[in-house]
């Protein structure tokens, strides 16, 4: 039997179907993703002004980047040469940009740390064969639930519960008990902590399941051997689970960071009325508010997006490297098989 020649014939006669099958994806992707990406790069070099309702663009080179990153604006010196120096307008936008980047980092960090601690513990417990916890499946389902609830509705719910005035659910309780009301929505630290809590609440179940699938990929004979050698559960956790989980923890951290950079719904909606709290304004909110405006400022918005893109690309390439070898690992195969068995009846 000549396999290679039969393959060749197939590749010659059916290649066109390969292209036809993937064509819709790439056409749509090019139109709705690739072009907008290039358009964003283009807009980052433009200054937009609104005249009688229509937006006029003007090429300003890298001025937007100079403004958001260094606070420098264009002006002329005594001899009439163009120079860049710190200006008030550019300084203000730089301050804004660094403020929202700082907010984003603080909010991400403040939800990632508690999340990873809780999730690691839970994942270790869920996969521990020696623990006879009943209803593990139920716990998993309940703990994952906050993740599927509409984030916009979650934000609305927490605004109702934690509203600053004494009419807010929690504040009314504090007020009834004779305490001072707390600015949970507008206060600097309070609002940040609340958003961290909401994010942790929404994401710990997801992280737990991701880490669990990592732990289940560890060779069980390692744990058996450790058990026979008399290693305590703590020793097993710190000396086997954690070191072997490093790749998946890195992956989780990087994806969480990329997700954190996009944090939008909760910080955008967890506010008093429609005013944006400056202490919880993230980079995604900043970008959005600059272009989604009657007088859009595409330049600042797009140049911030480009900075965000560069950061994400760096983080993403780490993920890519980790993800790449996942292809034909036994874990992926086993997972697909399990899924098939479970869903076979569908």
């Amino acid at each position, binding site marked *: 039997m000549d396999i290679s020649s039969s393959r060749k014939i197939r590749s010659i006669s059916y290649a066109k179907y390969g292209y036809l099958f993937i064509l819709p994806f790439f056409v749509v992707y090019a139109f709705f993703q690739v072009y907008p990406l290039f358009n964003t790069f283009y807009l980052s070099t433009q200054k937009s002004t609104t005249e009688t309702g229509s937006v006029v663009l003007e090429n300003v080179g890298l001025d937007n980047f100079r403004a958001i990153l260094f606070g420098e604006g264009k002006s002329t010196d005594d001899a009439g040469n163009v120079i860049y120096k710190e200006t008030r307008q550019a300084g203000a936008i730089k301050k804004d940009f660094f403020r929202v980047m700082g907010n984003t980092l603080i909010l991400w960090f403040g939800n990632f740390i508690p999340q990873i601690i809780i999730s690691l513990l839970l994942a270790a417990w869920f996969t521990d064969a020696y623990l006879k916890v009943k209803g593990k499946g139920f716990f998993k389902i309940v*703990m994952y639930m906050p993740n599927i609830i*509409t984030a916009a509705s979650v934000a609305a719910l927490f605004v109702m519960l934690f509203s600053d005035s004494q009419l807010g659910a929690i504040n009314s309780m504090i007020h009834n008990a004779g305490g001072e009301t707390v600015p949970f929505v507008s206060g600097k630290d309070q609002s940040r902590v609340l958003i961290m809590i909401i994010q942790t609440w929404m994401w710990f179940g997801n992280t737990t399941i991701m880490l669990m699938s990592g732990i289940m990929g560890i060779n069980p004979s390692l744990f058996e051997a450790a058990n026979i050698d008399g290693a305590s559960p703590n020793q097993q956790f710190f000396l086997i689970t954690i070191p072997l989980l490093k790749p998946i923890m890195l992956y989780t951290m990087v994806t969480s960071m990329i997700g954190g950079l996009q944090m939008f719904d909760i910080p955008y909606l967890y506010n008093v009325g429609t005013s944006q709290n400056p202490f919880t304004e993230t980079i995604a909110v900043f970008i959005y508010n600059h272009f989604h405006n009657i007088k859009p400022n595409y330049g600042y918005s797009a140049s911030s997006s480009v900075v965000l893109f560069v950061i994400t690309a760096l983080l993403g390439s780490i993920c890519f490297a980790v993800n790449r070898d996942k292809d034909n690992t036994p874990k992926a195969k086993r997972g697909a098989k399990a899924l098939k068995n479970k869903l076979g009846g569908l």
Partner: protein
Amino acid sequence: MSTQMAGTKSNSQMIKVRTTLVTIVMVLLAIISLLPIYILVVNATRDTFDISKQGISLLPGLNLFDNIKTLMTWSEEGKVQYDAFIGYRNSAVIAFSTTLLTVLFSAMTAYGIVVYDFRFKNAAYTIILAVMMIPVQVTSVGFYQFMSKLGLTDSYLPLILPAIAAPSVVFFMRQYMKSSFPLEIVEAARIDGCGEYRTFFTIGIPMMKPAIAVQAIFAFVANWNNYYTPSMILISREKTQLTLPMMVNTIISNDKLADFGANYSAIMLSIIPVVIVYFIFSKFIVEGVALGGVKE
């Protein structure tokens, strides 16, 4: 011998103690996970007077229908941009059509990459992997400006059509096909004279059912929950066009309305569909997350 016995005994006792402690922590975390939703449901059934006296209660009231009636009156009087029926309809139109497009075209793309040999096959797959991580926020300025230029703001097209290209779903489906799709079956179908498209629809799709089911659930939930894109594209904020999450937000950000019960019931109505979907499919969802089926 006796020391060994004692050893195993204390060991099994320790396991018992640990099991109890772990169970307690898990119960606590489960309560924390459910509590806000429980309070939401309870408050949706209480009247405003009750809620303003005592913000949080564990016992439901009897006011649910009155609260919903209040919402409907507000809507009729034009006080708010909230109409549950219109919201359900709009959210459902978007969520169902995007889900259908996502799973169909992702299955097709994955099938094309796995089943056929062509020159740019690996290049195509590498591109899909590489773009999987690009966040929507990065391209949104360009997207929004492009759509405004085309006059497509306030249209559902920019909300629905991009669903055809979902890189992470293609990735998942390709992984699935690689590990459990025998290519010989395609070969056999060809010998029997089955056309390529027919093979895809009558053999490919049924064999990918599990992967399609999981991704359909995720796509539905993600699109129902999506606030960002609709709020970016539907700039006129016409009530007839708004999705449910957007409507909820118009109520909360309107501080002139002071009917707490109605507010809570508005939020509750917006999450009922995803909660139902979740409780029907929760096992598959948890399984799907474990497989890395979702990115966000």
